[in-house]
């Protein structure tokens, strides 16, 4: 199969190449903050890329809501075992030391504060760390929540990984969320394609930003006040 880039996507990438991190850059940046020995749960979508960027020698225990800890990369084609999947329902492999458990134990791991970090995607995050990532609230949308609320509320640290703005350029980091909430004041750090932000009692503090991107430019695409 040939992978092609849509023309519009190519143009957009060129236009922002100097002031925007790629998805892999973002994943690499998150991976840098995951320490040896941590128990980590990666959400579906963008966060799953983080696993590809953990340095080979760093031992991290990857947990998945469907009852596995210590899983590894996708199996070779033809080696898939559909009894061994991750939360995204993709076949994975088990590393030595890995273990299986039932759903109530899996969510006890989350709710009980035994997961060091979860990395989730989001529609919106507020300056107070409120998270909206499960439902657009559109009248015709069928709501689906999965494990998002349990993870966001239960993990010791909830990190969000998302584009800084919507495709239309609207801020996704806002004063207060307009989409239905997943959890209140649960996000501790936000990784976007423009910056890394910590949620602190006073609001959001910029701890890292793209080279060449000024604070003023970052503030202009953010819906709540930022601190340097």
């Amino acid at each position: 199969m040939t992978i092609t880039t849509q023309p519009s996507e190519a143009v957009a990438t060129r236009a922002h190449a100097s002031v925007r991190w790629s998805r892999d850059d973002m994943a690499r940046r998150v991976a840098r903050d995951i320490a040896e020995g941590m128990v980590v749960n990666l959400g579906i979508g963008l966060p799953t890329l983080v696993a590809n960027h953990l340095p080979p020698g760093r031992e991290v225990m990857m947990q998945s809501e469907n009852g596995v800890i210590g899983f590894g990369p996708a199996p070779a084609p033809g080696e898939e075992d559909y009894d061994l999947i991750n939360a995204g329902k993709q076949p994975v492999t088990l590393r030595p030391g890995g273990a299986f458990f039932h759903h109530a134990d899996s969510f006890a791991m989350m709710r009980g504060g035994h997961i060091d970090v979860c990395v989730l995607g989001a529609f919106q995050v507020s300056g107070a760390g409120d998270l909206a990532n499960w439902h657009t609230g559109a009248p015709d949308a069928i709501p689906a929540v999965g494990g998002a609320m349990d993870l966001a509320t239960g993990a010791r640290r909830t990190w969000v990984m998302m584009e800084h703005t919507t495709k239309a350029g609207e801020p996704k980091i806002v004063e207060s969320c307009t989409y239905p909430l997943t959890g209140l004041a649960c996000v501790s750090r936000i990784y976007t394609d423009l910056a890394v932000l910590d949620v602190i009692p006073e609001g959001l503090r910029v701890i890292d930003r793209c080279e060449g991107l000024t604070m003023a430019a970052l503030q202009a695409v953010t819906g709540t006040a930022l601190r340097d």
Partner: protein
Amino acid sequence: MIDKIVPTPALALADVQEGATVMIGGFGTAGIPNELIDALIERGVGELTIINNNAGNGDHGIGALLAAGRVRKVVCSFPRQVDSWHFDRLYREGRVELELVPQGTLAERIRAAGAGIGGFFTPTGYGTELAQGKETRLLDGRWQVFETPLHADVALIKAERGDRWGNLTYRMTARNFGPIMAMAARVTVASVHEVVELGALDPETVVTPGLFVQRVVPVARQRTQSGGIKA
């Protein structure tokens, strides 16, 4: 002699009644008791309440049960998927009720039913739409939401090995909801890929002790086209 082995799915489900609440195990491709769901469709009873993580995929399994018009209500955490078209249509037409539950709360409500717990407080969902109308309390410095147990008339689960006492082992992530659903239902029917002699299962590795299981049905394992093992 205690003998819970039932030769066919149809015999194992012969007494499921109209209007029953049925728990069905499975998450993604793993742990779905397909043969038991087929037998439930064959059984022909309707007005069912289905408790599962999802609301059916494609035209088989729970999707087929919905398509056949047998389901009154679905209790699940994640109904909307690329191939949940039968649920999507019935929901939009107002023909099936949805009780949406965060996945961990779903699991714990099932566990609570099996463990004889009358309800519990959880921080999950506090301040969200899914906690609306529910009692809340500030406990250990966190606001928490009261949730009630989920019982069922029947649980349909998929295990790996079983014996005539109903002891079960599972295989990898196919375990998922099986052990807790087995505890929460009045009658638990487990499909297994292998029936073994009593005493053949290592007692240290039995995951579901037999008292939680009423019927054990042998079914053949299927292989996928790619050669991998199908759930």
